[in-house]
């Protein structure tokens, strides 16, 4: 419980509340209208999912640059098999998730097998997958009338809250429980927190890396499925703008870059903050690119702050040492 009510999370909740209030006032309350709210929650689902996907790789000290590419290939592959091979849409949705997991597994196996820096592996994979994505759909867009059931799912809501958002929340809860309660999740955190301590305790850090990348890919697959259900169609642009939000959410949400921690609530809240900034752009009439600018700057600030806190901690340790030294001096004088 203590972790959930952390200072960082409280700050984020505060920002969400204040931000929503500002938008509400600027639109004379229209922001809180049913259409606007539904749209907001619908469009925050993918940022949350990809933020969680990145969070999982971050917790073992890795980076996943292929978040967008995995999602794009999963979405387009599903699009192709539903339209060209007549696969029922719901199976297609499942295939999207599985494709993500398989691609994530490939990343993990490459990183462990070749011992190459995870950044380069996922960078190379993202280039490869972008090519694959083009090979799948080329310049056309597969429209959503090919999967009416999924599109209906994407439009549906329960008591005004979009179903895909509720599903996303369920996924978030599952992820949180995975890391808090399952042995597998704790092993991932141990590997990321202190790899040598984990190894001495018999935990295979290699396996942890593979599992982390696979789960990351799986969540990208879920994000792909969600995208299919509410986008007008799939083409090569799916996943193209996923990279920054996937990092921004966990970093602003309080996940350490070195690994060993997760922050599901923080990631969800941070994704909402980023989404609020996005929603503000048409209201306050600044370009979508300014959002990139702001988010980039905030990420920079958050990381710099985190390092500052580390410096303060070491100064604290020095202070304790000097106090001890004073005491020891007094002893010697006696």
């Amino acid at each position, binding site marked *: 419980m203590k972790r959930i009510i952390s200072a960082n999370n409280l700050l984020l909740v505060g920002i969400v509340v204040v931000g929503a209030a500002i938008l509400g006032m600027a639109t004379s309350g229209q922001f809180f209208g049913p259409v606007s709210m539904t749209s907001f929650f619908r469009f925050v689902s993918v940022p949350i999912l990809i933020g969680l996907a990145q969070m999982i790789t971050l917790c073992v000290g890795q980076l996943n640059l292929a978040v967008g590419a995995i999602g794009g290939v999963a979405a387009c592959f599903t699009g192709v098999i539903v339209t060209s091979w007549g696969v029922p849409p719901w199976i297609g949705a499942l295939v999207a998730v599985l494709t993500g997991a398989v691609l994530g597994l490939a990343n993990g196996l490459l990183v462990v097998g070749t011992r190459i820096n995870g950044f380069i592996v996922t960078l190379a994979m993202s280039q490869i997958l972008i090519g694959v994505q083009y090979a799948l759909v080329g310049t056309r867009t597969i429209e959503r009338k090919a999967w009416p059931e999924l599109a209906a799912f994407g439009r549906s809501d329960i008591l005004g809250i979009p179903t895909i958002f509720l599903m996303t929340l369920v996924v978030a809860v599952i992820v949180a429980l995975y890391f808090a309660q399952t*042995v597998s999740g704790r092993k991932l*955190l*141990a590997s990321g927190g202190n790899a040598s*301590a984990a190894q001495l*305790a018999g935990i295979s850090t290699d396996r942890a890396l593979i599992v982390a990348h696979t789960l990351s890919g799986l969540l990208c697959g879920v994000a792909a499925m969600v995208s299919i259900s509410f986008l007008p169609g799939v083409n090569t642009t799916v996943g193209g703008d996923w990279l920054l939000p996937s990092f921004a959410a966990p970093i602003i949400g309080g996940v350490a870059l070195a690994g060993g921690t997760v922050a599901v609530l923080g990631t969800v809240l941070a994704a909402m903050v980023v989404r609020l900034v996005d929603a503000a752009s048409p209201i306050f009439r600044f370009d979508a690119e300014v959002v990139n600018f702001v988010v980039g700057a905030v990420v920079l600030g958050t990381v710099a702050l985190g390092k500052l806190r580390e410096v303060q901690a070491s100064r604290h340790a020095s202070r304790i*040492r000097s106090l001890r*030294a004073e005491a020891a001096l007094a002893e010697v004088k006696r």
Partner: protein
Amino acid sequence: MTVALEVRNLRKTFPGVTALADANLTLEAGSVHALMGENGAGKSTLIKIVTGVQGADSGSLILDGEEVSFANPLEAMAAGIGVVHQERNVVREFTVGENIALSAVPRRAGTVDWRRVWRESKRCLDMLDLDIDPRTPMRELSAAQIQLVEIARGLYRSAKVLLLDEPTASLSNDEAERLYTVVHQLSAEGTAIVLVSHKLDEVFAHCDAITVLRDGSTVMPSQPIADTTHDEVVSRMVGRTLADLEVEEREVDRTATPALELADVSTAAGHRRISLAVHPGEVLGMYGLVGAGRTELARAILGLDRVVGGEVRVEGKPVRIRSVRDALRRFRIGYVTENRKEEGVFLLQSITRNVAVTVWSEISRALGFVPGRAERSAVQAQIEALDIKISSQDQLAGQLSGGNQQKVSLAKWLAARTKVLIIDEPTVGIDVRTKRAFYELIWRLADDGMAILLISSDLAEMVTLADRIVVMDQFIVRGVVENTHDYPLMSAAVMSHIHGSSVEAS
């Protein structure tokens, strides 16, 4: 008395170095058995083999009368062998209980059975009379508490044998006492304990038997402590080659202005009122145990940490050293680091670059141009002066032996013509013959007028080399003693300063 563990003729080699040649040890149940030896004698390798981190090339381990061999640490743990390493190795993001149970987390259908985690870990903590709630985050504990938790972790799988590697290295006196109380409690309950330590006084106070390793072989096999003396142990540890070393009686002119002087210096790292002075031609030793603050003091002298009180004087004049570059170029102070592989040499760079790195700023001309020939000849001079064995200056430092790497690490300071040299733990991981060559090298440098500040935790080394010994502990100077080169007397004098009481020499 039953034999809990027997190590027979263990041998282990790595490419280029024999870590263990013929190691033997007989550990009785319920005893506290000391394992001693110089750095590089093979203690860590022995521990790694017993705890399943590495396999031996030949020889056998016999646990409770049965021959065993461990493929990984888990197997050793399951067999009842626990270990607390010298370096803290915990997952700071987890709680105390989870760290203790890490090697075998109680589970129920894939999820963690937290209730059992807290219960089992509490059991281990209670065994040691530790009043720590297993739900406490690891981050909130002090270094000493973390060490005790690691002992609890070592007991988690009901350890028959517990290995402690330098357990009191960074503990205060009270904390060390607390630790030994726990150790005796455990041995009374039947656990066999192996204590790796270089603190002779602690070993003689708390252990029942002692085994000494030197150059990978057992030179004092499982001797009851009552049957041996400080002197004998030390001489077994250092061996004939060093014990017979002709110690130079050198004249040091203490009336000259000190090359480097600290007057009541306090630092941001925590030092308080440090006073010492090194004269040209003098070897001033700084003795202390790990955590005494000596390396941190060196870093402060070099400008890597702030001096917040007192004065640093170079050749009598008060100075403010702002960076390592400052220390080198303005005051000709150099520092040979203890961590050779990561801080002393650039493993993947050529010998030329490794040695010339400190002189580039001097020999470079317009636009920063470095004349290649001047660079190589400056380096060649040092290679010859120090007799470094290389096939060509283009060789990469990582291809050299440990001893030659250490020489390269030293060479760059000589190339820069430093006048004050701080040498930090110079002979860690170096074989005895090269060690001797190093000692002679240090004396030669001092004879040529270099002021040397020697940091070492090896008392035998200190007693051999230094003219005077500054004793440090807990970031202050406890005392300064003139070195008579008589080990038992010096050991007693030094220890009395550290423990704050007078101890009669045996």
